[in-house]
């Protein structure tokens, strides 16, 4: 089974990030492999170890991003491809997906894994757009994955409020993964050394067959207007009513005072699910 994993070189969220003059002050900050993507690489390597095949990591990023590719090679990916051109600077999720689609089209794959989102921008778009461009099914937020011999794939998806959904499908497929899927291994030092020696293929705009107006800020569908540090969330302290019994109070404390929200699963063909959803949105006055 051949697997492609799309990885991103991101600013570590574990540093104290300061926004100065509308931009991030990069002094003292560090770049890492996007943790969601690293999980995807680990899962791909595990699948390779049980099913055979090859794992290729693809990364859109400048020369520094090679570090990210080498980290992936160290935990067991076989090949690395870096896609970069100065014209790519400022690309949004859509353009990134375009670039990735150009690169992956020519590769043989059974499965494409992407992180559910990038830890820096938290967009969560690229994987889904890429699948659309490649014309393959996409499943998002996978937390458990098993592939049986005939290419049947069973995926557990993470939904809100701790709910899970089990989906069955077949390859080819694009899956975006949550960090709960697997814990990336700590590489043996020999593997780190071997990864340093491996050739990382690089492809630029021309070799990908893209034009300047398709990429960078020009090709992007979104733009950054302003950057600001997030306001810290207020911590709600929940005090259960003293009328309750001790057992109920403990239960209330452990739930953080939240009650389970009513939810409904829509089932059926995509068309009927879509029309039910549309009707709901209209009925509840979300849509005119």
């Amino acid at each position, binding site marked *: 089974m051949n697997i492609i994993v799309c990885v991103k070189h991101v600013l*570590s969220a*574990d*540093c*104290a990030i*300061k926004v100065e003059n509308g931009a991030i002050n990069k*002094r*003292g900050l*560090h770049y*890492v492999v996007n943790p969601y993507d690293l999980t995807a690489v680990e899962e791909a390597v595990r699948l390779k170890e049980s099913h055979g095949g090859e794992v290729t990591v693809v990364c859109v990023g400048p020369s520094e991003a090679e570090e990210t590719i080498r980290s992936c090679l160290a935990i067991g990916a076989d090949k690395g491809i870096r896609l970069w051109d100065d014209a790519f600077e400022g690309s949004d999720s859509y353009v990134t997906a375009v670039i990735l689609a150009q690169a992956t089209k020519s590769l043989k794959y059974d499965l494409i894994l992407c992180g559910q989102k990038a830890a820096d921008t938290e967009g969560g778009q690229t994987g889904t757009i890429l699948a659309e461009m490649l014309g393959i099914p996409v499943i998002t937020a996978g937390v458990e994955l098993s592939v049986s011999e005939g290419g049947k794939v069973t995926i557990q998806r993470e939904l809100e409020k701790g709910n899970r959904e089990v989906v069955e499908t077949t390859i080819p497929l694009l899956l975006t993964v949550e960090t709960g899927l697997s814990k990336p*291994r*700590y*590489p*043996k*030092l*020999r593997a*780190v*050394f071997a990864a340093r020696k491996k050739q990382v293929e690089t492809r630029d705009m021309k070799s990908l067959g893209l034009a300047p107006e398709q990429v960078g800020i020009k090709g992007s569908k979104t733009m950054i207007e302003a950057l600001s540090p997030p306001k810290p969330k207020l911590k709600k302290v929940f005090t259960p009513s003293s009328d309750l019994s001790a057992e109920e109070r403990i239960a209330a404390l452990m739930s953080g005072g939240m009650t389970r929200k009513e939810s409904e699963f829509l089932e059926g063909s995509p068309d009927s699910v879509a029309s039910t959803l549309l009707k709901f949105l209209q009925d509840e006055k979300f849509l005119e």
Partner: protein
Amino acid sequence: MTPSREVYWNIEYAQIVYILAAVAVGFMVYAFYRRYRLWRLGRPENRLDHIGSRVKEFLDAFVFDGLLHRKFLEIAPGLGHRKSAPGDFRAKELYPGMAHLFLFAGALMLLLATFLDFISHYFFDFLRGGFYLGFSAVVDSFGILLIVGAVMTIVRRYKQKPKRLDNKPEDAIALTLIIVVSVTGYIVEGLRIAATELQTAPSWAPWSPGGYVLARAFSGLSQESLLASHRAIWWLHMVLSIGAISYVALYWNRLWHILVSPMNVFLKSMSPKGALATVAFEQAERFGAGRVQDFTWKQLLDGDACTRCGRCQDACPAYASGKPLNPKKVIQDIKWQLENEGPYLLKGKTPNPVRDMVTQGVGEEEIWNCTTCRACQEACPVAIEHVQKLVDMRRDLVMERAVFPETAESALRSIEDIGHPWRGSALSRESWAEALGIKPLSDKSDVEYLYWVGCTSALEDRSVKMAQAVGKVLQRAGISFGILGAEESCCGDPARRLGNDYLFQKQARRNIEVMKRYGVKKIITSCPHGYNAIKNEYPQFGGDFEVIHYTEIFARLIAEKKLEVPKGSMLTVTYHDPCYLGRYNDIYQQPRQILAEIPNLTLVEMERNRERGFCCGGGGGHIWLEETSGRRICQLRVEEALETKAQVIVTACPWCLQMLELGLAGKPEEGTVRVVDLAELIVERF
């Protein structure tokens, strides 16, 4: 008639003894050679470096620790350091020390006497007259001491049974041989005296007190039976002595320590105590020690120098807190591995039975229990190096196998990803300094000192106060200094001690490059771990800086009257020695000098202080590891501190600070006793 020694009196064909002795010496040479081949299975290591100071330190150890038994009696701990605990001449190990002294002095004197006898008999006849009588009295008494020492040892081993001693057959055999050989020697002497002196010159006989007592007992026997028994027991004594030597030699009995342990002291490491050996990644076949042959020959020799005295076990905080690690057992487990696998390895075969040294022999939990506090090495009378071995096995687990505790993994990953182990800190490395106006070198580089803050003091909420206190004192004393700020990165100590030497070297090289770029010459540190790494380990990579701990410069500033600590309220404090400041770098006096100069302050020492100081439980990366078994080491230490009734527990290390606060939490004294850093204590009085 003058008294003299008549050699081979009443014995015919006595020269046979020389043939037997030659055979015994042959066995010794052969046994030593076989052992030598085992040691040589280890990797090469130069232990004849710094030969001048090596010889000097060995002679010091020979005179004070050997002849005078300073170390065995624990009058002042530490091979070669006597200065740090002035006025403390209590022998902490009186009974075992005296027992060993008697055995040692008795055996040495008998050996010396035999040698002198040999000289006198064959070359230069000086053992006669009054001198001979005196000589006889001295030697005879020392022989009695040998027996007394052996009996004391038997009482200790088999009656008192202290926990630190484990009894093996070889111990009983060694003691039996010593007693049987020396007692038969006295019987021979007694029979001879009964047959001769008692009758011809009775005034001489008491000059051999041991033999004299027995001679009086034998005096009822007829002359013929005295002569016959003398001949028989003489030969028995000879055969037993030479048999004992041959047995000890061939079975590699513990008595070999008489030769191997002093050898080990001579071959001790001459590198700074705080410098762990570097992995040469370009040449190394294996990273760390996963198999017995991955250790160096000297590390393998350590196993044979070990007498299983158990002083390391008594000193070990992990063992004391009920964890599986026992430093004595680690050394013995490695020795087992060498004895059982060595013969196969020498033939180039795969060892059988196969026992994985790291996971099945020493044990992973044991390897991770070590806080690298170095108390074991300080306690060891024969210079065994435990810490390096445990770190070498960690290196195997981390770099070769990538199997290690998750908490250690997240600390290492954090250093790899963001350059410090405090993932999740909302602070930057410059946050603490902003209010004080302390500038990074990138803003102002013409300063005398670099203050190396360290990750913990810069980024961990509680410890920030320590960095600020150090900064305030330096400012008040008018010291010109700056920080690296965002350009500082983990010194690498946790990575090295957690077994990832590759990461350590990366950090060290990076930091050296940054400091060289700013032309840094002198560095002040507040964290003893950074102090140790930069001072003792960075020179391995070309980073030669003058590194001082803040307690050193504060003590100097106070002595030079450049810093004055104002009067405050009366306070009783106790001082906890950080291992990496004290045991690793011999900074015991400076913090105490500072405390002595603070007005209205009384220092009460804990039971275990200075070289014997007890770890806080945070070293060797343990501040990030979970204590999976036993009690928390920090609680043991805090309990000892609370016994002093001090109001404040003072230390000089951000890790100790955190660990001790953790140990204090939940104790009844939590609200009344505080843990503070020495710098904070000074700033409180400004």
